[in-house]
């Protein structure tokens, strides 16, 4: 009797094959589609449109390069939006108060992805062997590559299993990726990450004009939980990247505020109010926009700056890509024309 009273209770660990806690039922791994054998078709299949447009000269010998180039341009037209030249004023202190030191940055026109990169899109990067290919990564990051694994130890975002995303989340933004994984994807696809000033310009829409007006949110100046997925929206998890069309920026870019924070290519470089350097345990990169679990509306605005260690693989941070506006301006020469 005494023994049974002291017997250890059986642990109730979480089911190893369970999906995200807010989705019912077991994990549903996405299928792996057959890859096209033709390298140009494969580039289009992988949605590496930026790569096709930027690298068309090296692909110029391919008989279908013109059609592929045209398809890539049309896809970019559809998926990216032009952000006109403008300004971003970046507070140099942690707290943005009247009179705090600021840095004015002028931004050139660029193309910004209308949506964050989804699990489905990132799956193609994983399936292309990115995590096994050392050439995809900066040399100083290679020692950390072994840590870029999913819940089952495969090279993939942190919350995936066996290198596959849960297909119910195919259109949700990919999360659980560090800055280097986001940057590697962008390079692989032929794009790059936005700078903090570019991101802010796109969200605050401070275009070059006599008025010098900027928006607190992409849709205007009033916080509105029906236009973004933050804590106050009472959803509690990510939503598909195509949701919240009513919260779009003037150029139809979606979800700059809420759903997931977005990695930028800029170091998080601020001081506190006394001028002391603000540092993290390691290099910090700037993230923008707030996420579904951002509690304070003041931390999900077009101008709020914050940072995260570059190697952090957080559950609420994703990314979107940009292209320079001049990329791929010149059409490929017809192979027949020689």
């Amino acid at each position, binding site marked *: 009797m*005494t023994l049974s*009273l*002291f017997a*250890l*209770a059986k*642990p*109730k*660990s*979480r089911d190893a094959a369970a999906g995200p806690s807010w989705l019912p039922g077991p994990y549903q791994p996405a299928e792996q589609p057959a890859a096209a054998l033709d390298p140009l078709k494969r580039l289009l299949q992988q949605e590496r449109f930026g790569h096709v447009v930027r690298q068309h000269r090296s692909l110029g010998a391919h008989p279908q390069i013109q059609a592929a180039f045209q398809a890539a341009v049309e896809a970019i037209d559809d998926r990216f939006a032009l952000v006109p030249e403008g300004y971003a004023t970046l507070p140099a202190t*942690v*707290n943005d108060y009247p009179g705090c030191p600021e840095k004015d940055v002028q931004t050139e026109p660029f193309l910004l992805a209308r949506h964050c990169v989804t699990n489905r899109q990132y799956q193609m990067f994983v399936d292309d062997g990115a995590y096994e290919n050392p050439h995809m990564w900066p040399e100083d990051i290679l020692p950390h590559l072994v840590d870029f694994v999913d*819940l089952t130890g495969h090279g993939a975002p*942190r919350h995936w299993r066996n290198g596959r995303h849960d297909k119910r989340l195919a259109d949700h933004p990919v999360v659980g990726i560090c800055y280097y994984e986001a940057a590697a994807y962008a390079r692989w696809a032929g794009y790059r990450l936005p700078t903090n000033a570019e991101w802010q310009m796109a969200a605050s829409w401070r275009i070059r004009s006599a008025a010098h007006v900027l928006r607190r949110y992409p849709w205007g100046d009033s916080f509105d939980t029906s236009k973004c997925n933050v*804590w*106050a929206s*009472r959803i509690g998890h990510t939503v598909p990247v195509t949701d919240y069309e009513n919260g779009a920026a003037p150029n139809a870019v979606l979800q700059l505020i809420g759903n997931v*924070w977005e990695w930028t290519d800029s170091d*998080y470089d601020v*001081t*506190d109010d*006394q*001028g*002391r*350097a*603000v*540092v*993290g345990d390691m290099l*910090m990169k700037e*993230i923008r926009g*707030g*996420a579904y*679990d*951002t*509690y*304070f509306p*003041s*931390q999900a605005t077009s101008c*709020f700056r*914050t*940072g*995260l*260690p570059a190697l*952090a*693989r*957080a*559950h*609420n941070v994703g990314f979107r890509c940009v292209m320079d506006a001049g990329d791929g301006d010149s059409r490929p020469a017809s192979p027949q024309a020689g």
Partner: protein
Amino acid sequence: MNRPYTTQTQERDDTQCLICGTRNEDAAVQCIECSAPMALVRDGTDPQSRPKVVTILGDSNVGKTVYLGFLLDMLSQHTTDYQAIPIGAYSVNVQQNVISHMACRMFPPKTPMEADQWHWAYYQICKRTSRKEEWLDLVIPDIAGESLTAELANPNTFRVINSLAGKSAGMLLLLDAPQAANGSSQPDFFGVKMLTYLDAVHRADRRSRVQMPTAVVLCKADMCPECFDDPRHFTEVNLSRLWNLCQSRLGNVEFFACSAVGSLAYATSPEEDFVTPIPLHTALRGVLEPFEWVVQQL
């Protein structure tokens, strides 16, 4: 029990401290013995029953105040089936203190060690389902970690802690997950001491387990996200002494992970030998779950 907050004339002994039972003078603001606010008795909504006490315990700097402040603020916003209504303006202090600081990217000041300066939160908690409302009066003090440590070292140094431990209907034990993950035994031993202390206060029969619902909450889990994957496994591996004690002594225990800060940085300069932690942004995760679990068990 369906009863909204009322201000009806109440018939009860308003001089007996809710926490330690000491009789006080009619006009006493705080109990002369344990320093608990006498308003906890006077503001009671139901003359027939006394509110239940839920304690949030944890080592110094584990984040008890931040946890409690966000918890009350979230409950006040009626975002889940649970909602909280403060009773007495003093109850809002801890919530306001945390929210006003964290919104400005600062941690709230440390809770003073003196019991007469602690914040006490007295809330009516309502659980709404499609068919009914269930109301519960809860008292949750914001206890200083240093006071807990002193009481563990020398029992009855803080009479109020001893009384609270005896009066508690439920407990949330907050532990520093990144510290444990980094190999420190401090959170493990703190948890063991705390449970042993509760065991002694309850004078529990060693052949039966303590049945008070106890939520073990792994705090600051943003810095070791594996806590969220499986808090039980994390506790078993990184807090093994506590894990074993929980299994053998607690009859109603559950494990949770939580975080309130999305990213932490430090302000520093070469001239100073100290750093100031800065919570860069909030990312609330797992705050409500342990509390709701405890309330369900009451």
